[in-house]
Each structure stands twice: as C-alpha cells, then as structure tokens.
C-alpha cells in the first residue's frame, strides 16, 4: 500500500536558542511485513515505509531506517536542538519509491 494519508506532526512553534525540543510524528501505513498470507494462502508482499528523515533548513539531523518489525501506522519521536528560526522538513519513503513530506515552522527567540 502506498502512502495515502496526511502525516501528523507535533512540534513546538517556538523555542529558546539551545533548547532541546521533542518532535512527534505519526503516519498512516499498514507496514505490511511480507510474512502474512492472504485467504488463498499466497504470501502478501512486503510493503513498508523504509526510511524517515528529518531536516531543518535543508540539513538532515535525524534519520531512521524502519524494518518490518515497526508497527503499523508508525510513530516516531525524536529531538532537535534549536539554534535558529527556520523550517523542518520530514520525509517518509515507501518501498514502492513514493515519498510523502510534511513541514513545520520553528521560531527561535
């Protein structure tokens, strides 16, 4: 299954310089493991999101490779040390090659 729904992101809108903020993300995806069989006994092929990337002002600061053991509708939380105002870009890469991105703005006081 390709990525089809809008990801959900929780990022604080503002932070102090040097503050470490938590970012939470959630995307809808079946994360089909390739281990299951359909009703006729044929294996259902693997179809997962295999990579999540987080960048700020174009610079990647966190990357996750997901394997088949990651639950359906993958949730990922991680941290970022705020230094300047700018924009986050989050990317989810599907096994089928498709990508979904989402963004969020951060203002550093």
């Amino acid at each position, binding site marked *: 299954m390709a990525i089809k729904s809008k990801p959900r992101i929780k990022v604080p809108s503002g932070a102090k310089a040097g503050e470490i903020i938590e970012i939470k993300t959630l995307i809808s995806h079946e994360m089909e*493991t390739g*281990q299951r069989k359909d009703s006729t006994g044929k294996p259902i092929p693997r179809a997962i999101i295999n990579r999540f990337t987080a960048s700020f002002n174009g610079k990647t600061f966190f990357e*996750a*490779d997901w394997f088949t053991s990651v*639950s359906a509708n993958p*949730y990922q939380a991680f941290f970022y040390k705020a230094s300047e105002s700018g924009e986050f870009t989050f990317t989810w890469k599907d096994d089928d090659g498709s990508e979904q991105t989402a963004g969020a703005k951060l203002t550093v006081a």
Partner: protein
Amino acid sequence: MQLRSWTPSRRETMGLGLTALLAAALAPRLVLATEEAVAAELKKLYGDKPMADGKIKLDLPEIAENGLVVPLNIDVESPMTDGDYVKAVHVFADGNPLPQVVTYRFTPQSGKAAASVRMRLAQTQNVVAVAEMSNGALYTAKAQVKVTIGGCGG
C-alpha cells in the same frame, strides 16, 4: 533448519523469510530469528569489534499484552557535541521473523540521542540495542519483553 550456522546476506535474509513462511505452512509455528541471527547482523555491521555494556537506556514494558504495538523508548547517554556524539543506534528483536527493528542516525544537532517508536514482537524475546559513538566505541544493552499475544503471522 540451518539458521544457526551461516551469515545471511540481505537477499538471503529475505529468502529466509520466505522459507519461514513455507515452514509455517507445514508446521504450526513460524521459524523465528535467533540470538545468532542478531549476532550475525552485528557482525556484518561492526565485525568482531568489542562492545561494552552501559550508556544505553532501553525503556520497554516488562509485559506487552499486545505484541502488535510495543512502545520502545531508547536514550543513549552522550553530550551530543561536534566532537562527541552518538552516530547510530541499531535495535534488534531476537525472536521476530526478521531481527532488525530500526536503525537511527543522529547528529550533534539532534541534541539528545533519544527516540521513541512502536514495534511488533512475535513472542516473548529480547530486544537488543547497539550504539555507535562518534569515536567508534560501541555500547550495547538488552531487555526482555514478555508477550501475551504475538504481533506477527496470521
């Protein structure tokens, strides 16, 4: 099964998954990964480099009622400066059909080498984490999770 005596490549690992499926069709239980499979993955990544205990905090439930969604919080102790930070963290589940769970790559800009994710566990098993520091040092930690209802197969 020959699961224990050889180091599978990625393709062979996929093949193993298929073999496991086939075995599942014949036998009542899935053929699952083993501690040896985790050791083989680690050997591929880091060779025979020694690993020390510590630095990693694995926050996992002792008992997971639902193996489909097991929360994992991982936190590696590090100042996360340009000169001293956690480069990568690998998480394995030694009783799942395929042992890899996640690989994280951190940067000093991450601020904290910590992350939370939800994973599937097929049965009661150990979750193993390995952290690679910017100076190349390796640390490992292990925790057992008891699973009441498995999160794979079906």
